[in-house]
């Protein structure tokens, strides 16, 4: 049952978008893979936040459920990512993403 759009929603959208943009910026600026992963997390969480806001706005639980999903996903993703980064470090002895440009053309 939609409550007619409270000011909360716009604010939430705004906040989330800012958050997302921050993440994106970090992603593009950082060269250290670890930090890049963090930035991705920020982006993801921005989305998650959006869900929560929306859920609150509509007053139903789906938002929260999605939030759980997102968090889980993030965890899994990071786990794999770290494994890969580890391998990367093994072989190149660096975590600088720009070293990772053998494939091109």
């Amino acid at each position, binding site marked *: 049952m939609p409550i007619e759009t409270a000011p909360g929603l716009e604010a939430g959208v705004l906040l989330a978008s800012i958050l997302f943009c921050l993440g994106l910026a970090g992603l593009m600026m950082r060269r250290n893979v670890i930090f890049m992963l963090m930035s991705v997390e920020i982006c993801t969480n921005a989305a998650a936040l959006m869900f929560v806001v929306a859920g609150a706005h509509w007053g139903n639980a789906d938002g929260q459920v999605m939030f759980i999903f997102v968090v889980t996903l993030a965890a899994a993703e990071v786990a794999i990512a770290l494994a890969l980064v580890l391998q990367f470090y093994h072989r190149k002895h660096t975590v600088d993403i720009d070293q*990772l440009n053998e494939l091109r053309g």
Partner: protein
Amino acid sequence: MQGLLAWVPLLPLIGFLTLVAFPLFNRHEPSQRTVACIGVGSIGIAALFTAIVAISVFWKNPSEIVNIALWQWMLVDNLELGFNFYIDWLTLVMLMVITGVGFLIHLYSVGYMREDADFRRYFAYLNLFVCAMLILVMADNLVLLYLGWEGVGLCSYLLIGFWYKEPANGAAAQKAFIVTRIGDTAMAIGLFLLFYEFSTLNIPQLTAAIDGPDINNEVVTVACLLLLGGAVGKSAQLPLQTWLPDAMAGPTPVSALIHAATMVTAGVYLIARMHPLYLLSETAMTTVAFVGALTLLLAGFSAIAQSDIKRVLAYSTISQIGYMFLALGVGAWSGAIFHLITHAFFKALLFLSAGSVILSLHHEQNIFSMGGLYRKIPLTFICFTIGCACLAALPFTSGFYSKDHILLSAWEFHQGINILWLAGILGALVTGIYSFRVLFLVFLGREGSASSHCNDANTPVMTIPLCILALLAMIGGLLAPPLQAVFGSRPDEDHSAWIEGVAIAMPLIGLAIAWKLFIYQKKSGEKRSSIMQFWFSGWGFDWLYEHLLVKPFKSLAKINHNDIIDNLYKGTAALSRQLNALLSSSQNGQVRWYLATFAVGSVLFLALLVAL
């Protein structure tokens, strides 16, 4: 009886085929004797048949017409062409000239070409030529005529370039073919126009259709002019006359047969054949007349300046055909044909005797290195003299009668002194000059460089034709064919005597001048006066065409040698290769750059969302 006529063109064809097919059946070359038998024999029989038919069928009534339908050639929509022959007296005359003179020249060739390795090829070509020429004159529709027309063109090409090892000959041959082809194309377009207008190309039907009430005169004029284009090309008249002098590169008998007696007169035949059409168009007639007049003068003057015996004859041929055109132009159809016949006789005679001179001098053709040959080769001398006399139209030679006829008609044409007549008269004078000039330079006067090692190369096979031709040239004046049925007879009113007088006087004056100028001229053609030089080069037409047409075309072709249009596609290919390079550089393997593009892409999409 009439069926024999179908064999007349067929026999040379058979001769040609057998000669060509020889190597298919046995590997070593046949003996000259066999070749000669086939080559000459086929023409001989053809001539015989013609004679038989002429005597049995045509002799009695001059209005006899024979139609021979062989088979349906094309029948599409309303285009109906038969492979049919149509023989009236005009055709018959041509037949007799072609087969008769042709036979003599064939015979002569046996002697002339005896040393040549390609004996068989020579006679094959010659037979093919006769066949084509016969079809040309016998055709009952213009397309069939065109077939013969092109056929003779091809043969002339092959025979001019007969000694193919010499590049110059090849060039001359090409020139001949292409220049005539230009005329032929005009003629072809003329045919299209005629068909478009009258929806038939059958000559009798055309002549019938012309009598119809509503005739678009412009169309007829244009058609006539286009046909004239073809005629001008074949008959080496202005402006397409340049090929004939070069065509002398071929063996001399060839020059005699093709470039004097028969092929070059095809144009005259064509116009005579289509005369009902021309009668409808004043413009066309006058054009023909003036082309003739102009040509005969130009060629005549050029002939005076030549140093090569054959080129002199070539120019004289052009100028004589000019006379014929003049005659056609003034409507003296039968006169034109009559001159055609006599010209065939004496010009063939001249060429053949020239040939024996050349042969006797081991292929020396420069008249300035000849002289005083009358002792060495008397027979040739006599024949040549007769020829010259006829050419110059001295009284009581065949040439005199025909040319006189032409001059008179030119006079009648405007009832009095007029340009055409004057041109003819002047031409007669010039003719006298150049013909006797060459006679004197070659046979009289003091000996030239080449004259010393001259030994008579005449063999019976060569002398017999010479004598016969000489005889014909003498008495040819009496053989005026009965062509009234074809052209309709015109009342010939009597003329004041002085006109005749002028006509008779002119050649004699020419003779005198020639004697004055050339009999003791020192034997060196080196330094000519500029005017002579100009005439020598045939009034600079070659130069003109070279710079006006040939050079531009060649350079254009060279510029576009590899197809400008292709660059369009090459360009496209290059462009896409560039784009490929550009885009590939975007794939630089940098993750952060990739992220950036991703971001930009997203922004773009959102922008689209706003924009759209």
